[in-house]
């Protein structure tokens, strides 16, 4: 292995700015605009002064009339501020996908795939020019062809100068909730990278309050539209439900640190999780999980066993409330306890509103079934969705205690099939320039190992604190990927990851020499599984396993995992 040393500049937070076009004039123009002109530069830290935030984490973009700015369902890591002109939000119905110009994720061609046989680096962790993904990289621009017809057929809302949008995706690490296009020619937007938005909000309480308020309002209205049991409501009833709904946030935005401390302390984790609704209590309302996760538990002996966990879009408490409504003479208490895990947004629709507005709107066939034999004790286990009940309580506890429900592409290995041949590791290395991007080790329960491979989390806490935004969601499928060019190797993401799935490595140049900064310390980069995004055929680890022992499954919903277990 080569030991030679190459001195170079250590990459810093703003080594690769969001745009190279933010000159002094552009920065001054932004700073002269409301609300930036009211911000106090002294409130910003010396590491991220306001002017530099504008220069490096923002860019001005011009849009033509009809040009799509963001698409519903795409993952985005930036928010927008309307400098001038107008933008239109498509509220409902959604635009058909054919007009949105979606394309397949870019992947290597057959020849480039085959060429990896001889073109892979001989040394490990060689930083290639091809890794570069400049911030200004060309993005396709899509123009809607018939704007008047869209305005005629779809309910829309207009955003004008001074409005913010895109903050939900930027701050909650979730997909864009609506498609937005420019209404007028020359609409000028200020696009703000999420880490810049985060720092601006830290330095300006007024903007923070404003963004938080619109975030809650928009998240509430967006989410309620997606709840199946509310779809029979008319506009007025919908508004009544929205007005009565409480928006509650639990846990820390950066929950991984607390979780790691708790896990290391050896304390009973379940009893430390905040209780939203307790078994045996009167049901105060239906709880809807907007983002994050909650655990459904039931008393068992001297402890609590996990029956299920709920992710975004799932509900709690409707069965008991519906039972009370259908059998007013038989009051029932909650059969299970709901505890929140990590950073969780909940919406709570009060019982009175459910009784008066929601349940009468439901057709009889859509009403939840009556609870069986309440007096004989909690019957929740029998009511849990079928796929979940096929998992043992021990396995549910294992998945929950380790927070594995967060993974959308978790690597699970059946240890009773795995011959420890490491074909998966070799395949991973072969498709990543001879660098494996995961460890075939990790927590084991029974015959199942959840390996230390990036799970592409529903809530990727690794992204919190990344100073450059190098770790981000791919806009197409939402995979969490690292841009090696903007990664400065600070290690924040690796420390944040609760699953030990990110490695910090020393890098080499094309000749195999270790890259060393002017301070004589090696240049580091964060690396992890990228789910073989640019490879033909999907994750090489799965395709390479000869014994059907390895799979990438969504542990958010469990259905896929249960199917795989019983394959």
């Amino acid at each position: 292995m080569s030991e030679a040393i190459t001195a170079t500049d250590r990459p810093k937070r703003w080594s690769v700015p969001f745009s190279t076009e933010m000159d002094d004039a552009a920065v001054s123009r932004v700073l002269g605009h409301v609300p930036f002109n009211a911000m106090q530069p002294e409130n910003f830290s010396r590491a991220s002064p306001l002017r530099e935030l504008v220069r490096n984490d923002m860019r001005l973009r011009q849009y033509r009339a009809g040009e799509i700015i963001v698409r519903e369902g795409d993952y985005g890591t930036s928010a927008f501020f309307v400098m001038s002109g107008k933008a239109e939000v498509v509220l409902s119905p959604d635009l058909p996908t054919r007009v949105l110009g979606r394309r397949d994720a870019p992947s290597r061609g057959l020849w480039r795939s085959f060429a990896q046989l001889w073109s892979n680096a001989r040394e490990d962790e060689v930083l290639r020019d091809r890794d570069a993904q400049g911030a200004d990289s060309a993005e396709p621009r899509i123009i809607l062809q018939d704007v008047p017809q869209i305005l005629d057929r779809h309910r829309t809302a207009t955003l004008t100068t001074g409005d913010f949008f895109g903050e939900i995706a930027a701050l909650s690490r979730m997909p864009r909730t609506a498609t937005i296009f420019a209404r007028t020619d020359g609409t000028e937007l200020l696009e703000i990278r999420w880490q810049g938005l985060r720092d601006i909000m830290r330095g300006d309480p007024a903007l923070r309050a404003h963004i938080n308020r619109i975030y809650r309002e928009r998240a509430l209205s967006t989410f309620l539209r997606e709840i199946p049991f509310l779809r029979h409501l008319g506009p007025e009833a919908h508004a009544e439900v929205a007005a009565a709904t409480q928006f509650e946030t639990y846990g820390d935005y950066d929950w991984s640190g607390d979780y790691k401390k708790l896990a290391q302390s050896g304390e009973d984790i379940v009893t430390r999780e905040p209780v939203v609704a307790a078994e045996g209590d009167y049901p105060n309302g239906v709880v809807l999980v907007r983002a994050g996760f909650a655990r459904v538990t039931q008393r068992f002996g001297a402890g609590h066993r996990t029956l299920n966990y709920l992710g975004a879009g799932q509900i709690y408490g409707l069965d008991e409330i519906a039972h009370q409504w259908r059998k007013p003479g038989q009051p029932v208490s909650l059969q299970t306890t709901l505890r929140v895990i990590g950073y969780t947004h909940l919406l709570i629709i009060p019982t009175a509103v459910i009784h008066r507005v929601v349940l009468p709107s439901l057709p009889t066939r859509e009403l939840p079934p009556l609870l069986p034999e309440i007096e004989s004790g909690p019957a929740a286990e029998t009511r849990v969705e079928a796929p979940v009940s096929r998992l043992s309580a021990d396995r549910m506890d294992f998945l929950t205690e380790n927070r594995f429900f967060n993974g959308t592409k978790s690597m699970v290995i059946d240890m009773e099939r795995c011959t420890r041949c490491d074909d998966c590791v070799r395949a991973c290395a072969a498709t990543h320039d001879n660098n494996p991007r995961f460890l075939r080790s990790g927590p084991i329960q029974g015959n199942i190992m959840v390996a230390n491979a990036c799970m592409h989390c529903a809530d990727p806490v690794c992204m919190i604190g990344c100073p450059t935004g190098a770790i981000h969601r791919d806009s197409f499928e939402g995979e969490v990927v690292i841009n090696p060019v903007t990664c400065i190797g600070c290690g924040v993401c690796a420390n944040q990851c609760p699953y030990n799935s990110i490695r910090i490595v020393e890098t080499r140049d094309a000749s195999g020499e270790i890259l060393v900064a002017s301070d004589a310390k090696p240049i580091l980069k964060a690396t992890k599984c990228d789910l073989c995004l640019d490879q033909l055929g999907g994750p090489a680890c799965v395709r390479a396993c000869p014994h059907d022992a390895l799979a990438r499954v969504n542990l958010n919903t469990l259905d896929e995992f249960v199917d795989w277990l019983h394959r």
Partner: protein
Amino acid sequence: MTARHVRTLLLFAGLAVAADALIIVHGKLAPNYPLLAYVTGWIVLGLCLYLTAFNARKKIPFLPFVGARHWLNVHIYGGLLAAVICILHVRARWPSGGLQLWLCWLFIAVTWSGIFGWWLSRAMPGRLSTLGGEVIYERVPLVLRRLRDRAEAISVATVEPAGAATLAEFYTHELSPHFAAPADFWAHVTGSRRPLKVKLQRLTDRRRYLTTIELKAADELADLLRQKDQLDAQRAGQLLLKAWLFVHIPLTYAMLIFTAVHVVVVYAFSGGAR
């Protein structure tokens, strides 16, 4: 019965039907077509080349071929089918010439090493999983060193406070060789617990001579012995899972070389029979 068991049964049934059909067809054609051996020979060779390609497929995981698990299935059942056709090719007779005999032995060895590997890859993972103490094979030396360092530290640490070297001497003479390197390979391969029991019994026999401080350390050493045994068992199982391929693959290539010579010889000395 799981879906996988059903699939395996169906595949076996399919293989049995195919083998039966081949035997019947071959039995009917053989008397009238003296050159049928050429056909069956080329089919066996083609199958063997295809089966060998499985190893090549593993080297190029970036190409969008079908998954390795499907390849392995074809490899297993194709291999069994190749064995049936090979028996038809030699007309179920033991070959007479030296080259043919070597080739026949190699084919048998490749087939049986493959069947052994297949059985091993189904039986051993479950045993390793039940054993616990999962460890990546390449990390075994690291874990072993940690165990050895702890065992040494525990035994040495008793000398001064206990005012006796009984346990330390026992460790030096009886246990240190065991902690120095992986041990008891064959016992672990066969699933025997005897080596661990013997060592624990020796430690138990020595307890009557130990001070209170040494007794506590002896308990810790017993725990380390169990961990070492678990590590040795993991290593033995994983080594066996890797090692059988070092038999199967070289034998395969040797068989292909002999097959090439066999083809040349057959065509060179067929005397116009083809």
